[in-house]
């Protein structure tokens, strides 16, 4: 898999800080599972966090806290290092955890024109969904009020900006109005997260918006 569209530094830093809405954390973790370039960048941002914390003037722990902690260790089971089995499938491990399995486990809901979605259970602040776009089909054209992350898991789509294939992530914000179209030949499956409702340009999707929660 040749990934051409990576995550920008501001998202990777916010991921290292643990300061993204859960739905965005999920997209980042899924992309990192596929992309060593971003994994390296994310690990470097972890190192920045480590250096910042190491440089802090500590806040004194109360008396007896070390003894209390040592006493706890008696009852703390120790993890052993073991081989990690790579999970097979279209979805990387973090996504499988949210779906409860791989592609076959997704409970799709039809959005019309063959497009399907499945909303994943995440916390407040943003919403994550899987999108299924039949080969050659289009998602209604729309703009954005906040940030939309779209990670391709299978197939590919094109929009006004470029082509996005497996592992690629598109970051869209208020400035982008686009109409993603799945490439012919293979159905396109994406993981998308939005922190504000989309802005559809046509009437029908706008009416259906509250129903589909997009």
């Amino acid at each position, binding site marked *: 898999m040749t990934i051409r569209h990576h995550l920008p530094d501001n*998202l990777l830093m916010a991921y290292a800080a*643990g300061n993204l809405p859960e739905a965005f954390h999920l997209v980042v973790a899924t992309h990192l599972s596929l992309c060593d370039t971003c994994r390296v960048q994310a690990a*470097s941002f*972890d190192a*920045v966090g480590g250096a910042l*914390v190491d440089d*802090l003037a500590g806040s004194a722990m109360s008396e007896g806290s070390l*003894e209390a902690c040592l006493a706890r260790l008696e009852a703390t089971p120790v993890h052993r290092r073991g081989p990690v089995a790579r999970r097979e499938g279209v979805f990387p491990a973090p996504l499988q955890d949210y779906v409860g399995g791989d592609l076959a486990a997704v409970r799709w809901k039809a959005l019309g024109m063959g497009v399907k979605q499945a909303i994943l259970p995440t916390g407040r602040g943003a919403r994550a969904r899987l999108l299924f776009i039949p080969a050659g089909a289009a998602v209604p054209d729309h703009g954005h009020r906040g940030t939309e992350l779209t990670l391709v898991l299978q197939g590919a789509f094109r929009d006004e900006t470029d082509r996005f294939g497996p592992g690629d992530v598109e970051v869209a914000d208020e400035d982008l109005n686009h109409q993603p179209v799945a490439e012919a030949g293979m159905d396109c499956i994406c993981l998308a997260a939005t922190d504000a409702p989309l802005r559809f340009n046509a009437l029908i999707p706008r009416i259906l918006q509250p129903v589909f929660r997009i």
Partner: protein
Amino acid sequence: MRDIGRIWAMLLDVQIRPDEASPPPGGRPYAGRQRDERLNDEPDWTALVLRVRDHGDRAAFAALFQHFAPRVKAFLMKSGASASLAEECAQDVMATLWQKAALFDPTRASVATWVFTIARNRRIDALRKARRPEPEDLPWGPEGEPDAAEAMALQEDVSRLGKALAGLPEKQRALIERAYFGDLSHSEIAAETGLPLGTIKSRIRLALDRLRHSMS
């Protein structure tokens, strides 16, 4: 706790000289830094974590605790936790270090980095009641033991990164601190951070490539 007296005796006796640490049985041991290391006079935290891992060494753990627990507490308080919650979480973080010492890979992260990631996850859990999914784990190579030279090189790069951070213009450093202490949203963080990550990136890249290679 029955043995507080003994533990204190051990603590007082603890000479943080990692080059004297007994090597773990088998494998290529992490030999520790040399005395003429140009790093600084900081203890070799990696050697202490490996002593926790290999020998369940409580004195090594105590030395780690005394350095990192107050910093983790300060980090959590800066992120909005009360002193008592921060203290409780700092203890949790240190207990996790004990529990997961075997999972620590010194070629991919320094101890400070690793402690930060544990503290960050604890903070998300305790303060935001949210989840932060982790990327898929990379499997460990068949040789098991991480390469000692790579681990030391990483420590040097991390130390250099720390110095570079300290040398940033005040305004930029303040912004980065706000990002890490949970004060800036992703859209408020500048896309161009200007952080000097070059050498540390190539070091982490090497470690990843080694892992990937050992898989095939």
